[in-house]
């Protein structure tokens, strides 16, 4: 019933063009290093160097991709050994790269979207002091992310995994003089570290049971593991995925991460880094194939998260935070897909790619709107902006149609396939997961339409307000070309990528050497039926949003007297409150209590003993002044004791 350990395709040593694959890591890293070390000298050309290194990496990635495409399926997996990293005894962690269809797909996504966002940032960050540093951090991110997907074992993955966490921390906290940005950055890093523990312990188990941590060896020998170990590994890897990908219960950091500049939200917190959890599970498919229970938990997490994201997304008034919860929810779809196993791995990756296009585009559009609106993020203070920013509106609308899954836009193909596959699960699971995914589609259409109406359509509410809260007058305007071009390119992707990747199972076929063949499902509802249902439900969501928000003018401040579900959604479904009550507050108290105990108790005991030894505090003080003499005396006494003891031994 289950596919054989499909990821264990034998790897050959990389040769030819592939032997230069270290350039993929080195180019962006070089850019980052130069920008950080050069300081102010790089102000004039820093952003150009940043862009050039990423574009060069993208060009190399493309060349490598086409070379690989020209090879037979069994030759498409190769490994490149760079150097021994941590060799001790049986542990032999090498610094090596694995080039295969899955990693190359990610290379193109990361460097491709990365290039566009670098270019966009030239305009977006033009007025920022220290823009070079921003590009240095972006380059650092790309380098770490490429290591994450290219590493040939779980430890190199972990390196990249924490590396992107660092870049994410630095970029969320870009406006570090703002306390909320600094706190958001710290929160993101901490919640990610909680997930990282899962990944780390999974690696420990692999080493203990198999003596290795490289993909090739682990996957080849995965059937030596007991079912308990396999289940443990699947759950621990899932914990890691939850941290990085903002999945329940570690989702709370992602909306806060929107405190970073918008290009960062587009690249890191929408298109690439947050999808690393999906990559991890797809990459570990030979392990997940062996544990139906593990996959069930993955599906549950995906299903729960996709609903949480949708529901909260309906209630927020912050442009980027709605998009952030939308990301949480869409990654929920991807996690659900890879949780389905061999019928879903490729579907999860496909949705990841189409989402990379349209969500990055939506974020860049949001950035463009905010750029033209004095950095205003509150959608209630917008409205009717389509007229003032035609290109932004057009590209944003295409991304919107892709996200809510209207055919023939890309999201339709990738999301529908996941919903259909979820219905293909046996028994109650099919109905539950399929139903949840369908419901999510309707909710997605609802909150995205609300966003569309409040920002681009309807009355221009900002005209009544005149100025933003910092007192500057609103003059909405279209963004420069350096920002428009990336939006247009991503919009083209939002339109066409789905059909292109889906057509003739192009993507699934390409990924087969890594993920195994994409298996067909025949569930309670057939594929056509699912397609009709999901489009119909999306349209219902759209219509509902128009009825609620499109017919009458909206207030510029959020209504306070709202029903319980809206209140709950506005409070992140109490996720933050729960974290606060369970961890933050008890932790703070524990820390304070221990500081008290350590100062008074443990230390007091010792001081008491010292006072006893000295007889009294007065004598202690005298001891301090004449301490050298006392020390000499005690040395002497000690020496006499020794000599005496030795003599006794010697002559007794």
């Amino acid at each position, binding site marked *: 019933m289950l596919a054989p350990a499909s990821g264990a395709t034998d790897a050959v040593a990389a040769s030819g063009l592939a032997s230069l694959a270290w350039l993929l890591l080195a180019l962006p890293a070089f850019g980052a290093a130069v920008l950080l070390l050069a300081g102010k000298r790089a102000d004039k050309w820093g952003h150009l160097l940043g862009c050039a290194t990423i574009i060069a990496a993208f060009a190399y990635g493309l060349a490598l991709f086409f070379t690989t495409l020209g090879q037979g399926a069994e030759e498409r997996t190769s490994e490149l050994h760079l150097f021994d990293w941590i060799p001790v005894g049986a542990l032999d962690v090498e610094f090596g790269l694995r080039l295969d269809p899955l990693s190359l797909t990610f290379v193109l996504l990361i460097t491709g979207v990365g290039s566009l966002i670098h270019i966009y940032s030239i305009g977006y960050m033009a007025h920022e002091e220290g823009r070079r540093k921003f590009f240095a951090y972006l380059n650092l991110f790309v380098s770490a992310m490429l290591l994450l997907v290219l590493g040939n074992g779980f430890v190199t993955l972990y390196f990249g995994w924490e590396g992107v966490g660092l870049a994410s921390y630095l970029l969320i906290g870009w406006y570090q003089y703002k306390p909320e940005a600094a706190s958001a950055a710290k929160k993101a890093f901490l919640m990610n570290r909680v997930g990282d*523990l899962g990944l780390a312990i999974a690696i420990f188990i692999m080493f*203990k049971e198999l003596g290795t941590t490289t993909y090739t060896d682990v996957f080849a020998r995965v059937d030596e593991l007991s079912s308990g170990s396999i289940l443990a590994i699947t759950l621990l890897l899932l914990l890691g995925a939850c941290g990085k990908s903002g999945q329940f219960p570690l989702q709370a950091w992602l909306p806060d991460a929107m405190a970073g500049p918008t290009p960062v939200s587009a690249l890191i917190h929408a298109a690439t880094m947050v999808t690393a959890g999906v990559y991890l599970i797809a990459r570990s498919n030979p392990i997940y194939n062996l544990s139906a229970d593990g996959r069930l938990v993955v599906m549950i997490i995906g299903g729960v998260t996709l609903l949480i994201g949708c529901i909260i997304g309906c209630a927020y008034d912050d442009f980027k935070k709605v998009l952030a919860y939308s990301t949480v929810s869409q990654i929920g779809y991807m996690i659900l897909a890879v949780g389905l196993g061999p019928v879903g791995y490729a579907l999860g990756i496909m949705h990841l790619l189409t989402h990379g296009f349209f969500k990055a585009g939506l974020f860049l559009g949001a950035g463009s709107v905010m750029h033209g609106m004095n950095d205003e993020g509150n959608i209630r203070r917008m409205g009717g902006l389509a007229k003032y920013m035609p290109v932004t509106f057009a590209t944003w609308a295409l991304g919107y149609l892709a996200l809510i899954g209207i055919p023939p836009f890309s999201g339709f193909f990738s999301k529908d396939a996941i919903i259909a596959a979820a219905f293909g699960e046996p028994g109650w699971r099919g109905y539950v997961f399929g139903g949840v995914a369908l419901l999510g589609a309707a909710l997605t259409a609802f909150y995205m339409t609300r966003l569309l109406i409040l920002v681009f359509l309807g009355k221009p509410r900002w005209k009544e307000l005149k100025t933003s809260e910092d007192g500057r007058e609103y003059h909405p305007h279209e963004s420069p070309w350096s920002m428009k071009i990336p939006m247009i390119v991503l919009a083209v992707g939002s339109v066409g990528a789905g059909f292109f990747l889906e057509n003739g199972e192009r993507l699934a076929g390409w990924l087969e050497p890594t993920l195994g063949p994409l298996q067909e499902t025949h569930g309670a509802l057939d594929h056509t039926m699912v397609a009709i249902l999901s489009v119909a439900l999306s349209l219902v969501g759209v219509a509902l949003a128009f009825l609620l928000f499109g017919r009458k003018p909206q207030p510029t401040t959020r209504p306070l007297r709202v029903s319980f579900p809206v209140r709950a959604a506005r409070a992140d479904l109490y996720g933050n409150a729960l974290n606060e009550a369970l961890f933050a507050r008890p932790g703070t108290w524990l820390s304070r209590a221990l500081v008290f105990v350590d100062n008074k108790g443990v230390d007091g005991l010792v001081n008491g003993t010292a006072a006893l030894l000295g007889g009294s505090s007065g004598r202690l003080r005298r001891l301090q002044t004449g301490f050298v003499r006392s020390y000499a005396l005690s040395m002497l006494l000690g020496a006499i004791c020794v000599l005496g003891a030795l003599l006794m031994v010697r002559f007794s």
Partner: protein
Amino acid sequence: MSWTLIALLLLPLVGSLVVAFLKGNDRTAKLVALGFSLVELALAVVAWVAYDPSSGARLQLTSSVDWIPTFGVHLSFGVDGIALVMIALIAFLMPVVIGGAWSDKLPEGRSASGFFSLLLAMQTGMVGVFAATDVFLFYVFFEAVLVPMYFLIGRFGGPNRQYAAMKFFLYSLLGGLIMLASVIGLYVTSADKLGQGTLDWATLVTVMKDAPTSTQIWLFLGFFIAFAIKAPLVPLHTWLPDAGAEAPVGAGVLLVGVLDKIGTFGFLRYCLPLFPAASKQLAPLVLVLAVVGIIYGSLLAVGQTDMKRFVAYTSIAHFGFIALGIFAFSSQAGAGSVLYMVNHGISTGMLFLVVGMVMSRGGSRLIQDYGGMAKLTPVLGGLFFVAGLSSLALPGTNSFVSEFLVLIGSYPNQPVFTIISTVGMVLAALYVLWVYQRVFQGPVRGTALLNVAAGPGTATDPERSGIKDLNRREIAVLAPLVALVLVLGFYPKPVLDVISPSIGATLSEVGVTDPVAQEGK
């Protein structure tokens, strides 16, 4: 007879005396001290090259002369890979410390020549501790090294220095005396066995192997308590925050970076090989202390309000990891622990130095007196952050390799302790990032930053605070540390290759085999 170690031992002593005679001529004294420390560093490189990890000899670069023949005491020196990397660490840190303390404001009436002379004297003591291969000689250096440190804290430290110095001294002295009892016990046991007593380490290893477990346990405890005070393990740690906080920055780097490692070095060199049965039997006890130390030290670091005490508590957590690795009995965990000892010296040394640089600008140790400092001093902020990343063991920094080795190596034998310890990874991120946030992020604030130029409460304009970013000397002091953080993060192999064979030898002296066997290599 190899002279390398003897030269390493004597050179700083000579330097110390020369510098002491340069009283009243501070600049010359500093230059001479720096010169001696650089020559010592070159000598350490010579020792590193001369040492052959693959030769199979347990101790190398050995030399020995009779000292007190009646009691079988020799002046004998030699190193294994573990001692060698520690000696290299001191040699590396000493010029950095001297550079870092170059323009320290000393307390009233204290001269720079005295300070630098004591630093060099410390170096002799520490080299002696690591290079001694006679147990009595080790004991002598163990005690001797207290003296310069006592004066460094007591004469050159912060406002509460007398109290801190005495506390440090009493603790160490107590530990030393307990250890002395065990040293005597070793002599007696060897005399029983061989007829003629000896305190030669290598001979004692073979003698003690078959000693009854009960004897081993008593003698083990004597050494263990002394080392657990030094290392320090909870609950014997309370001297460290005081000593670390009151010590002048340079002495603090040496205290936490190297001197404390005498404890963990002692576990590896004396506790494990001399008392294998006791080590195995008491390992669970040590592991409990180690894991408690990780969590307790981390939680206390989170709650600190004083930056130097903060660094001290992070070290207590890190020492927990080192002890965990040593008593988990595997080659990965053991090598990880030794590498951790080196890396902790580098990263905590750097953290101490940057904290010192913050304090030299703001004049306060309290976190709450600062805020938003990155705006005024971006380079200092960046380097503080790098030190922090190394402290929280981010991959790509040196500490990741050692922490990862300790944990992955401990897991096969001690899964429960290992999993509890991983919580320390989250707490480390918390304490580092939170301190960084409070001192460097947010708007410029805090009495230490805003009132330097003008009177209290008047200067609210950050531009006029008078706080300057790092100068060239300070950058030159930190640059080698940053370089090592990265080099050892990406390519630790040369150091691991020196450490691993000695860990292998130690494990076979204990009589344990690796839990994860090496396949056909």
